Structure formats: structure tokens, C-alpha cells
């Protein structure tokens, strides 16, 4: 069973010519089939955790370890992490002009699966996945994220999640900027992947709203660069009612 283990992770980022520590010792274990929600106020370091796990060059790991099934993730390049089974659905997906969605998806699937998918089944697979996400077929011919609305970008991220079938999916504020209909469609996509039981999900969010659609097994409260409280789904209800104040007031958060 695939397991992502994060131990005492410390991460800095360069800001104003100085190294600033953003993550201050994160411990978390995500197993295949589990869904963990990470909730926290703005600036608590949630997105830094997501991008550090994916290997974004902006972040420097200064301590701790991350392993996927015992393999050292921090030693891997960004593309190696993806091929090892890590997937990051980004909060702000990047436009890639000149590269069509269909070409991008096929290149990505070829890289992650280790061989080019057979054309006929692949076309069918993409078409069906797009239909499930209410995406128009013309979408495939557009350039990656270019001119996409906020909802289209997020559906495109979840389309990739469905096609690439990672071991661990990190969803970085996938719910932000979505209206209720789009949120429902995107959540259904995530749930289809979860129901296979083959993915561990790390759901990073600021709001409890998405948790009505995607039921987490564990909820962690993130504040000032570390997990400050963990619990079951009921912890989300507490946050819904009380907000983050209890965690930020007088805390280490700046």
C-alpha cells in the first residue's frame, strides 16, 4: 500500500534577500485510500507544503524527510516525483501557449505510464473523462490553460488527476474561485478517483465548503508552518463554527 511520509519538514523561501522559514516541522502520513484535509488561515504555509512536495525550485528544504513507499522524494526531480506517483492539482495552473491540451495530456500520460497509451483506447478514455467533467470536446484543441476560466482550469486539473491515476494527490485549494456548480463537478471528479481506493488524497483548503462534497477521513489544522491539531471530520465542523481564531490568536503566526 502506497504511503507518503512527511517527517519534521522544514522549508524556507527567499524573500527580500533573506531566507524565511515557512514550514517549521511538518509531520504527516498519508496512506493510499485515505483523505486528509489540511485547513488553515491564509499565510499558514499550506500551499508551501503542496509546492515543496511537488519540488518547486522556489522552495528550499532545510530539514526533515519525505518518502513515498520508502523512496526519498526530496532526492527526485520534479518530473521523477510525478512519475513516482505524486500529483499536485495547482491553485493557479500555468498557461502553456502553443501546446494543445490533447498533446499535453498524451505526453504526460506517456511519461507517467512509461509507454504511449494506445491511440484508440486513449481517445475514448479522454473523451469519457471530459464528458464526466462537463467539458466540451473542443477543449482538447485549446492551448493548455490559455484563456481558460477559473472553473475550466480546475476541471482541467481534475481531468489530469483522473487520467494520470497517481498514488498520492495533493489538491491545492482546488475549491477556491469556484461557484457551487463547478465545485460539485470538480468534487465528483475527485470522489471518482478516491472511490478506486488507490489514491491517498491531501486536500488543502481554506474553506470548509468543499468538505460537504469530499468527506475527509482526517482533518489537520495548519498554522504558522506546522500542523497544530489533528482530528476526524468533526474537526472541520468546529472550524466551520469557530474559525481559525483559536489557532492564530497569540500564536507564532506573523
Amino acid at each position: 500500500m502506497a504511503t507518503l511520509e512527511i517527517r519534521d519538514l522544514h522549508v524556507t523561501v527567499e524573500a527580500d534577500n533573506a531566507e524565511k522559514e515557512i514550514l517549521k516541522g511538518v509531520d504527516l502520513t498519508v496512506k493510499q485510500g485515505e483523505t486528509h484535509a489540511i485547513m488553515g488561515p491564509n499565510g499558514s504555509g499550506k500551499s508551501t507544503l503542496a509546492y515543496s512536495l511537488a519540488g518547486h525550485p522556489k522552495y528550499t528544504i532545510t530539514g526533515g524527510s519525505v518518502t513515498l513507499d520508502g523512496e526519498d522524494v526530496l532526492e527526485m526531480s520534479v518530473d521523477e516525483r510525478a512519475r513516482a506517483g505524486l500529483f499536485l492539482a495547482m491553485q493557479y495552473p500555468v498557461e502553456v501557449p502553443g501546446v494543445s491540451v490533447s498533446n499535453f495530456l498524451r505526453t504526460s500520460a506517456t511519461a507517467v505510464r512509461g509507454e504511449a497509451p494506445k491511440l484508440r483506447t486513449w481517445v475514448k478514455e479522454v473523451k469519457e473523462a471530459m464528458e464526466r467533467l462537463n467539458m466540451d470536446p473542443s477543449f482538447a484543441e485549446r492551448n493548455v490553460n490559455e484563456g481558460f476560466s477559473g472553473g475550466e482550469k480546475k476541471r482541467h486539473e481534475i481531468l489530469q488527476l483522473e487520467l494520470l491515476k497517481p498514488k498520492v494527490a495533493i489538491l491545492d485549494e482546488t475549491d477556491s474561485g469556484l461557484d457551487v456548480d463547478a465545485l460539485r463537478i470538480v468534487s465528483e471528479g475527485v470522489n471518482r478517483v478516491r472511490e478506486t481506493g488507490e489514491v491517498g488524497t491531501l486536500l488543502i483548503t481554506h474553506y470548509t465548503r468543499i468538505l460537504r462534497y469530499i468527506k475527509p477521513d482526517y482533518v489537520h489544522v495548519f498554522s504558522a508552518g506546522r500542523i497544530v491539531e489533528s482530528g476526524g471530520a468533526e474537526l472541520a465542523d468546529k472550524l466551520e463554527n469557530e474559525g481559525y481564531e483559536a489557532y492564530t490568536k497569540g500564536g507564532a503566526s506573523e
Partner: protein
Amino acid sequence: MAEAQNIPVGSTTAGQIAVAAESTVATRMSAPPSFDVADFPVPHGREEEWRFTPLERLRGLHDGTAAATGDGVKVTVEAPAGVVVETVGRDDARLGKAGTPVDRVAAQAYSAFEKAGVVTVPKETVLTEPIRIAVHGEGGIAYGHQVIELGAFAEAVVVIDHTGDAVLAANVDYVLGDGAKLTVVSVQDWDDKAVHVGQHNALIGRDAGFKSFVVTFGGDLVRLHPRVAYAGTGGEAELFGLYFTDAGQHQEHRLLVDHNTPHCKSNVAYKGALQGDDAHAVWIGDVLIEAKAEGTDTYEMNRNLVLTDGARVDSVPNLEIETGEIVGAGHASATGRFDDEQLFYLMARGIPEHEARRLVVRGFFAELVQQIGVDDIEERLLVKIDEELEATV
């Protein structure tokens, strides 16, 4: 991004739209057009038409010090049956009909060549195979002139392929009879040290169609000046260009479409990728719609993709309109960068770095490459693009 970059990354350059009583396209040149090199002063580098060009790398083509050597270029013409291929003297009446040199080096080329090539496709001859003109540099200095003339309703594809090493100033005339259709692919696949300067004049007959692909990969300095004018109404010009500018290379494309005749069309699309220190691409797109050219429909576009730090693009579209009675006129220029965020996004989907770059650059050029319609050239360009990407930056 290179500090020297004059176009902010991701921005669209507005360029200039001038409505002028007197053409600034014509008046900003340092001398009126002429076939005689003596009519042009030796440029010093601050002239409008020379300000982007490193004169010291022209190896004397601009100041009269570059004398032709015996081992300049070897020109071979392969043509299907029905095509007339000739080598003619300077006094042949068919030379220089499509346009007059507008700068010192073009006039130098016209003043210095000894023999010219003339390729004629007789009227109503429709070729199914391309005419191939191979210009291979043998290491020396050369001046040349080539005429390609299509009779009325003739149709042809011409590939002019420049390879090897040379210092070459050579002009090309394309003369299209009424209703003729000519596609030209000019490939500049020179060795690293080559210098190539030329003016390409197209004169488009009534209802004729001219389609040009200028593909520049090689050379130390390449500076081409494709120009189009119309000899009758209903003419159509499509000018496409691709360039891949590497470290240290200067590749300059200066275009002029002179809408001097009513009811003609032009469409210009040039795309370039740049990588490496001191890679410098220059694109000047002049479109002039003369007062008499009612019903003109024109659009010009330049896109640049900067792959690494240290490269520089100068892109200057210039649309000059002397009549409001037109169908359409537009232009656009944009320079973007293949940046770390795009690379991260693609790699985060499992795509290795070199593959990610390839995907982006192939995608960037694909829409132009696919329109060439000459299979072996299309294939060679894709291979060339891959080679360029694999070269050490």
C-alpha cells in the same frame, strides 16, 4: 530575462500606426532605391535601416571592402521538365524587374554579381514537383542574383536551400504573372560563421498568389529583406517566417508589403525562438497602404519565444495607412518567455525537462511548419528544431 530585452515579457507591442501624407517607410531610408551601390553612403550604424545590425560582423559587405572570391557559393538548380533554367549576364532585361535595392548591401550585391540565375516557369505550366535551388557556401565571398519568373497561370513550388559557409550578398526577384501561384521556401541552414544579406522582391500579378516561407536557423549574421508589391488587382501575399536564434547569432528579417494597388491582400506571420547569450533576433514589419489601394486587406504578426536568459528581440511592426477605404488592417507583436513556471507545470505532470522544452517549441512553430506543404522540408525543420534544442545552451 535579458536586461537588454526591449520588449517586456508577455507584453504586446503596440508598434505604430501612422497616417501620413508622406510615406515614412520610404523617407526614413538613408537614400532612395537604386541599383548602383555608389548611390548609397557607407552606413555608420545609426541609420534607421542599420541600427539593429552589427556592421562589424558584415565582413565588409557594407563598405566595399569585401571583394568576391572564386570559392564563394556553388549554386545547383534541380527543376522538373518544362522549367527553363538559365545563367545570364548582367545585361539581361529580366533582371531587377521585381524591385530596386533599398540599402547599400542590396545595391552592392546588384552592382557586383557577374552572372545571374533565371528560372522560368512558362505560362499555364503547373508543376507537381518542387524546383530546388541549392546554394552551398564554399568558404569565400560571393555576390549573386536570382530571378524566378512564373508566366500567367503557372503554378510552382521553389525551395532555395542555403548551406555551408560563405559571406554572401544576393538578391532574389520573384515575378508572378497574372493568376500565377508561387510558393517559395527559403531555408537559411548555414554553418555558424556564415554571413548572408539579401533583398527578396516579389512582384505579384493580377489575381496571383505568392506564398513565402523564410526559415532561418544558421549563420553568424543573416539579414533578409523580403518585399512585396502588386502589379494588378486581386493579388495575394502570404509571408511566413520561422527563425531559431542561438547564442551569438544575429538574425534579422525586415519586411515590407507595399499595397500600391487596390483590392489586394497580405498576411504576414513570423515566429522565432531564441536561446543562449547574445542571441539577437530583429523583426521589422512595414506595411504601407497607399492612397490608391482601396479595398486592401492586411494583417501582420510577429511572435517570439525566449527560451533562456541572455537573448534579445527587437520587434517593430509598422502599419502606414493612407486611405480609410480598406477591408482591414491589423498588426500584433508579442514576445513571451518559456519560463520556470511553465517548465514546472509540465514537469509536475511527469514530462522530463528536455521533452517539455521540445513540446513547447514544436507547438509554437507547428502551425507554420504544417503550412509549408513540402514533406521533406517540414520533416527537416522538425529535426532541425530538435537539434537546436539539444545543443548546449
